[in-house]
């Protein structure tokens, strides 16, 4: 993985000093609440319902075991013993004290981490495929390019006060595991007509109040021009994006109002003017960064089936929580952070430390964070998966539910977030209680359930095969249900099935949706495909046929 050199180190250390001084000025009354807000937001610090929330960047979701141990020790020392992994591969702490934040940042800097640009109207932490570098079907490892974008976007002099937040995702495989079409810019590694390396560039995707799927701005961009092309898009957005209405300020609104052809024309015109003097990534720099991501020293092994003849629990876990690796004898292992009594995406300090130890023992000391809020050990010998499973199971980290209904994406909701209308964690709990039969879950197969506590859509409900949105109805928490959304290569937005339902009726509503699916599905048809084939009508009719049983 990427290691800091003197420039990276200097920058994060000077950032800690700068933020320490800003915090001091705020606490001393030299900076107003509003002035400090602009500054702290560019460093991931929100003031939330109960306490501040600090969001720490995990660039493109890659962590060393040392870094994960530090995240665990921060959770213990400055928080209440846990952290929350997010859909954008960050981790959030919900209970730090403002005056401790500079010290937390110093602890992070010591292990080459930071909270720079994890919030605020600037270019956010770049995200990528959590299975980068280890899946067989990959065209090219997207992590070197993610790192090049991370560096370019960090303290970018021109684009730190944008109209609104700006998110970039990079993928290098046909399967989109980074929700790249729902980002302000999606960078897809591609090949040109002669096989030359480069990118397809999308823009204008996003969730929030107005969900939009990104559109192609350029089919093929030669690789050395990536940064100048990003600058051209950002410059058009910085100048022309709306600043009068926060709800219309994302680039998706600009792309929509201009139309993709006119938007593309403006970007290309700007790019023609700037590419001569703009940033260019020479081959030596590409190779320098790429050298940080060379494959680990794999052993020469043959593929085996470690599940054969083993107990059913291990077989289920192996089937659902592991994934094919590009190297014979190895397996990609998912660590589920979804279980009935825990908020989705949460991990405790001791779990983080244990996972760090397991990463050292089984996976070359590296851990990945996924879009679906789970962790991954990317390089595990197949023959060692059984002992790894035993260790994970003892720590409550082996819920065999990856890709199933209970592997849900969920925002912190009303319990923590000052924006939320409704709780999401409690609903997650109700759903887990209702759907606790694994045979049934496995029979249902792959279903992305995504839940947001408000229309800001941090839980990505628009792109859930089943989406749940918390709404406020006269002071009560109600839930609007959508079906038919997807975040991957076949990205689509879900449709609302009808009036929102009360909290206690959410599990029954899901049960009815699933009942229609089970009755009407074709053999091997996923829930999302049945919805696409039938439309929402039969689902809607069943859900609203009679009052839900209490």
């Amino acid at each position, binding site marked *: 993985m990427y290691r800091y050199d003197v420039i990276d180190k200097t920058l994060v250390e000077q950032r800690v000093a700068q933020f320490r001084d800003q915090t001091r000025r705020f606490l001393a009354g030299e900076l107003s609440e509003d002035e400090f807000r602009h500054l702290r937001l560019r460093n991931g610090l929100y003031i939330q319902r109960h306490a501040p929330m600090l969001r720490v960047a995990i660039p493109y979701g890659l962590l060393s075991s040392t870094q994960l141990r530090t995240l665990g020790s921060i959770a213990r020392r400055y928080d209440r013993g846990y952290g929350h992994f997010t859909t954008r591969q960050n981790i959030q702490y919900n209970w730090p004290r403002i005056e401790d934040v500079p010290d937390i940042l110093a602890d992070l800097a010591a292990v080459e981490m930071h909270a720079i640009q994890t919030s605020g109207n600037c270019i956010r932490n770049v995200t990528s495929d959590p299975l980068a570098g280890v899946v067989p079907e990959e065209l090219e490892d997207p992590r070197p390019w993610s790192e090049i974008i991370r560096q370019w976007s960090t303290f970018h002099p*021109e684009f730190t006060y944008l109209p609104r937040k700006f998110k970039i995702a990079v993928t290098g495989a046909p399967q989109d595991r980074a929700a790249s079409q729902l980002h302000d810019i999606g960078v897809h590694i591609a090949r040109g007509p002669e096989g030359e390396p480069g990118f397809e560039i999308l823009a204008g995707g996003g969730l929030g109040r107005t969900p939009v799927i990104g559109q192609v701005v350029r089919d093929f961009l030669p690789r050395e021009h990536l940064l100048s092309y990003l600058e051209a898009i950002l410059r058009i957005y910085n100048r022309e994006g709306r600043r009068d209405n926060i709800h219309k300020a994302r680039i998706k609104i600009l792309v929509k109002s201009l139309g993709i052809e006119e938007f593309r024309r403006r970007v290309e015109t700007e790019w023609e003017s700037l590419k001569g003097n703009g940033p260019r990534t020479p081959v030596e720099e590409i190779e320098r960064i790429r050298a940080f991501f060379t494959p680990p020293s794999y052993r020469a092994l043959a593929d085996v089936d470690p599940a054969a003849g083993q107990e059913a629990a291990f077989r289920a876990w192996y089937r659902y929580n592991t994934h094919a690796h590009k190297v014979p004898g190895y397996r990609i292992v998912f660590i589920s952070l979804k279980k009935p009594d825990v908020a989705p995406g949460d991990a405790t300090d001791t779990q983080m430390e244990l996972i760090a130890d397991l990463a050292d023992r089984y996976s070359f000391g590296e851990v990945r964070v996924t879009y679906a809020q789970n962790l991954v050990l990317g390089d595990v010998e197949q023959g060692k998966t059984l002992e790894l499973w035993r260790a994970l199971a003892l720590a409550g980290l082996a819920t065999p539910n990856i890709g199933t209904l209970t592997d849900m994406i969920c925002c912190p909701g009303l319990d923590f977030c000052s924006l939320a209308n409704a709780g999401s964690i409690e609903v997650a709990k109700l759903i887990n209680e209702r759907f606790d039969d694994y045979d049934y879950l496995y029979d249902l197969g792959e279903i992305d359930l995504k839940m947001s506590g408000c229309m800001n859509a941090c839980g990505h409900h628009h792109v859930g095969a089943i989406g749940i949105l918390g709404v406020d109805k006269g002071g009560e928490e109600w839930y609007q249900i959508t079906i038919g959304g997807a975040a991957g290569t076949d990205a689509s937005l879900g449709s609302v099935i009808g009036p929102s339902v009360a909290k206690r009726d959410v599990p029954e509503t899901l049960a009815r949706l699933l009942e229609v699916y089970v009755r009407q599905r074709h053999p091997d048809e996923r829930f999302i495909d049945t919805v696409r084939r039938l439309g929402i009508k039969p689902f809607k009719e069943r859900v609203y046929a009679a009052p839900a049983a209490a």
Partner: protein
Amino acid sequence: MPRRLLRDGEILVDEWRMPAEGAVADDAALMLPLAEWRTERARLIARAGPLGVILAPADDERELVADLPRLALVAAEFPTMSEGRGYTQGRLLRERWGFARELRARGAIRRDQVFLLARCGFNSFELPDIELEGAAAALHTFSAAYQSANDWGLRTAVRHR
């Protein structure tokens, strides 16, 4: 009380005046918003004193390109801390249009913005008096950078990658 500002890293008394601040002598430095420049241009270029134009965030600096050789100052106005269009105006004036005289940031600017503004080519900053010392120091907030830029107002060489 004379207005002080930070220019090229030093705290100085500002010699520039705006029409709204009272009568300005013919040979004194005068700056005014682009909207007024448009209507008064002919009269103004006959003056003896230096001229400057203040750009609002939505203004297009291209409108000034032909006149840049007669301007001793261009300023970008930042009505709020979150305003970001001036950063692009500054970069383009320096990089694309070759403006080499005083480029000033004014408005809701605090010490926390001057480093990035300087990287966009700004070399002078109108700040509240109590911010001036801190802002002069803040020009040295970072001694390295990832991107090449203008680094016009920075006194220490910023190493790029």
